[in-house]
């Protein structure tokens, strides 16, 4: 189920990238793809009926082999941060693009030769 969501999201992202003329929408589409991948990563760690993989004094009776994989969640955190970084750089670039080419619409940009 979750896989399907992420696949749909990737599809939306790719569709957005391919069809939109506005560069900011490209950035958002990219972000959507990022999110989709992140959802997918979290989903891979999920074990049906699994428990939280926390092993402390308060939870001594831990069922070995039935815990949710914790690693993907850690990875996703990093991936999100990176996604945000990309978004930030992209957005700042777009501000300059707008200044230089007077538009961020692919069809209306000026001075984009070659």
């Amino acid at each position: 189920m979750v896989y399907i969501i992420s696949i749909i999201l990737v599809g939306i992202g790719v569709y957005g990238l391919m069809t939109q003329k506005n560069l900011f929408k490209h950035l958002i589409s990219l972000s959507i793809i990022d999110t989709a991948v992140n959802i997918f990563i979290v989903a891979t760690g999920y074990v049906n009926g699994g428990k939280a993989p926390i092993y402390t004094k308060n939870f001594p009776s831990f069922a070995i082999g039935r815990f949710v994989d914790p690693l993907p969640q850690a990875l996703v955190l990093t991936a999100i941060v990176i996604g945000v970084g990309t978004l930030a750089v992209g957005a700042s670039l777009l501000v300059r693009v707008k200044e230089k080419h007077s538009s961020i619409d692919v069809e209306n940009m000026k001075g984009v030769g070659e």
Partner: protein
Amino acid sequence: MISLLIAIPLLLAFVSVMWKRLAKPLFFLAAVTNMTVLLASWFPNSVEIHVMGSWKPPFGINLVFDNASFYAALVVNFFFFLVSLMPNLVESYGVSLMLLMAAANGFVLTGDLFNSFVFMEIMTITAVTVASRRENFYNAFKYLILGGIAGSIYLLATIFAYTATGSLNMAHVSMATISASSLVAITTLYAIGLGVEAKLFPLNGWVSGVYGGNDLAPVILGTSVSFAALYMVGRLFGTVFHGSGAGVLYTLALITIIIGEVAALRQQNLLKAFAYSSVAQAGVVVAMISKGTSRAMGLAYFHLTNDAVAKFVIFLVAGFLVYNYKNLNGVFKKHKVLGASFSMATFSLVGFPLFAGFQSKLRIIMELFSMKDYLFPAVMLLATLIEVGYVVRWNVKLWFEEETDEKADNPIVAGTLALILSLLLVAVFIKPEIFLGGAMKMGNALADTKDYIHGVLSVVKGGM
């Protein structure tokens, strides 16, 4: 010690954020330190790993330092060092360059798949900032989007690898038996993910815009960063996945060679023409890597080193020319040293004798013939033929056409560097061992999976 390669530029980058005026000297400092560190640990000849936070492999993040990563790091840092010698090229990009340096080093040294993703993304983002120099924003943005997509795909591949093997450690993954269908998915996604940075067709659309957009980007992205990216191609497809997916790489690379050269042929812009040539050379390297043997890979990196040195000179000179002259006809009459270096570098690119490119190209062709591959040499020679066309055309234009009365000062440092490097190319022709020895060691290290696994998983040295 090795973690210093990443730590120092990173640290200095943050320092220079606070004291912006120090960025240039600090970048120089970082480059010098890195070179010192590397020279101090000359060719380890074994696999050393540096674990982080006492997580022994296969857990946690570890840096792997063997001949392959050493040589790659050496080349990467060498070009950063060269760039740091030219303050007017660095300008206000000291911070970005330091971050790029840290990321590239991390990308080369890491032994962890996810970690490599992180470094790749940092590399892309910083490369984008470097690419945006001289108001090249739109092309930088395109690069960012493509890099972002590539990053997502790379991440997806990493996750697939994780689900298939339960580990992110490269050595560990390479040990695991992966079902055929997952292997296809993983290697394909990796090929696409890396393909953007490795300039594989048709994922290399960003190259001309980024390399052609300013004078700093091609100098550093076309040399250090592409070396790092192509190193990872060798590491993943040579060491980790034992040549699975090589067919895809091979096919794409051959198309890349032809496409790159053909596109270079029609280019009217000096920087872009050689940007495309760099695409084609990357194709040669990837195709060679896809052959999988240690010799082939060694020759691939030998070729890449020659190409990187030549491209550094070419882009350095071309960047200077393009941004100081409106009309490039006959400019070399005013800049004889730059011109001579440029010509030597371009001739090395083509593979004329007396220059390094000859050594690598002929060796590659010879190796291919001994592998009974008759297609690739033909493609390569056809590509070289096209290369001859535009290289000669540019040389003739820059040397012999009627000059205009524009004037610019001779760049002393850049000129000296270009001359030294182009003489280095001649030296490599006479004594190929200068590059070949290291490259062959690199090839051996990349092809020898067993040693790698053994080194990473059983011997633990160093730490932090």
